[in-house]
């Protein structure tokens, strides 16, 4: 018995460096309350709660999700898959509903890194203590290793990375929830300090905290109501070691095999065979502007070697999908939540509740998720039409 699942409501706190006036439980409550209100669903009707919280070390609270119980006595499961936590959580909620064991699932994700002094020390601990911890492997250097490889293989330049970042910041100006509201030109971005060549400071994501929640419901509950239908979703995990991904017939490290495979399945389920034409909005989990370059070919939007031209075309070709109308992770990166924020923003676009950042005529939107050193990838297709 596999029922179709749709998103009825979305709730988000704003994303900022510190929410000094809120405890972790209060942040969760704010997002959940907003989602229930947006969905017009009462907490009593929620059958299961799934919580996404990534490394506990960022919050400094072990298993912080259980400090904010939603209703009384409901099942609660906690997911931690790093950067894809938010999407893994949404998918697990969708499975619960699709199985028939829940009619309504409440999923939320919390990032509390405002309580951390530095995130990079925490991120360094994601690497293998036996072989890798002695090296400056961080999210920034991981991204830089890929960016330099993309430049060597496909002819990207520093200018491409800067223009992608500029587009994200510009979009974020219309998103009142975003962390960063600055209109930065590519020149401004290239002038910002170099962190690890070729990555400049303004091409990296901020440290943001906040919470997001979604109300997922079965087709019976949704009935004739507007919903953002989960038409297809998939997740793939790759080998751990970056070094293992260089020499494969399917493509090298920057060809992002896990996202390719996730897209292939999700597109098949959603009936997408011409993504460039069929997708209206794409929310990318790329915490560094250069990381977007790996997603375009993986999503079937362009060939890898045409990537630089594809970036340039985004500024002029209105037939292309709109990228990151929310501003994306460059404008707000609440790590545990970011992948669910991408889904939430796509849902808002499909539901036509995206306010100033609403794109016109959105029938289908795609949200990606990225975790580990591009080890985990997720893709979710949301649409205004109930799946067949």
């Amino acid at each position, binding site marked *: 018995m596999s029922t179709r699942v749709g998103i009825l409501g979305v709730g988000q706190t704003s994303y900022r460096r510190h929410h*000094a*006036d809120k405890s972790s439980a209060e942040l969760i409550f704010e997002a959940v309350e907003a989602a229930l209100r947006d969905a017009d669903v009462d907490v009593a009707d929620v059958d299961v709660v799934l919580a996404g919280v990534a490394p506990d*070390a960022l919050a*400094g609270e072990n298993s912080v999700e259980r400090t904010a119980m939603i209703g009384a006595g409901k099942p609660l499961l906690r997911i931690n898959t790093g950067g894809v936590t938010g999407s893994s959580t949404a998918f697990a909620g969708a499975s619960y509903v699709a199985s028939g064991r829940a009619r309504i699932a409440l999923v939320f994700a919390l990032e509390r890194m405002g*309580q951390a002094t*530095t995130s*990079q*020390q925490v991120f*360094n601990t994601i690497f293998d*203590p*036996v*072989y*890798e911890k*002695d*090296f*400056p*492997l*961080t999210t*920034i*250097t991981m991204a*830089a*290793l*890929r*960016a*330099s*490889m993309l*430049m*060597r293989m496909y002819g990207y330049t520093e200018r491409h990375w800067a223009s992608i970042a500029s587009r994200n910041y510009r979009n974020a100006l219309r998103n009142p929830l975003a962390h960063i509201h600055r209109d930065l030109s590519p020149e401004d971005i290239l002038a910002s*300090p*170099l*962190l*690890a*060549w*070729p*990555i400049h400071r303004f091409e990296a994501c901020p440290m943001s905290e906040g919470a997001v929640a979604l109300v997922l419901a079965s087709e019976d509950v949704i009935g004739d109501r507007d919903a953002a239908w989960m038409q297809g979703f998939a997740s793939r995990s790759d*080998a*751990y*070691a*970056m*070094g*293992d991904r*260089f*020499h494969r017939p399917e493509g090298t*490290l920057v060809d992002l095999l896990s996202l390719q495979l996730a897209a292939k399945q999700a597109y098949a389920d959603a009936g997408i065979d011409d993504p460039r034409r069929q997708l209206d909005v794409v929310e990318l989990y790329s915490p560094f502007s250069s990381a977007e370059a790996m997603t375009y070919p993986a999503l079937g939007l362009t060939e890898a070697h045409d990537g630089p031209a594809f970036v340039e075309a985004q500024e002029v070709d209105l037939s292309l999908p709109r990228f990151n109308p929310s501003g994306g992770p460059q404008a707000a990166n609440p790590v545990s939540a970011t992948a669910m924020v991408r889904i939430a923003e796509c849902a808002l676009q499909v539901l036509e509740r995206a306010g100033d950042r609403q794109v016109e005529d959105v029938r289908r939107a795609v949200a990606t998720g990225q975790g580990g050193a591009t080890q985990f990838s997720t893709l979710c297709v949301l649409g205004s039409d109930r799946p067949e």
Partner: protein
Amino acid sequence: MTTASDLITIKGNWSFDYTYFAGETASRFFKELREHKRVMGTRCPSCERVLVPARAFCDACFCRTGDWVEVGPQGVLETFTVITAAFPGLPEPPVVLAYATLDGADTALVNLITGLDASDVAGTAERLMAQPRVELRFIDEPQGRITDFSFEIVQG
């Protein structure tokens, strides 16, 4: 009404001690560094890839690995970055971090590139974008740690 000055914060420290078991395979890999100044991989009997650093199992084929194989001492530079910003607990910049596939290996290995002056970042980047060959450079007294060696650009 709570004003900003009424908001309480509490300082905390998050530090945990661990004892990680490296296992037989990694232990032997480090012993080979320390006693023989050589980098070893293991071969998967199914796909026949030589995995470096040595592993006990191949995750792609999901089976135990077999033979031990020495790799290097030279190899191909796959990608690099020049780190210019300081991070707490990590080496002083500029630091060149790179992945290289040693001759005979099917996977790339991470380490630092030493023996070059990376203070001219743009010049260093241009030089490394040309993918010069690299070779292993061991310290005089290896300790059985991954930092016993680094990569150096092969001259000429």
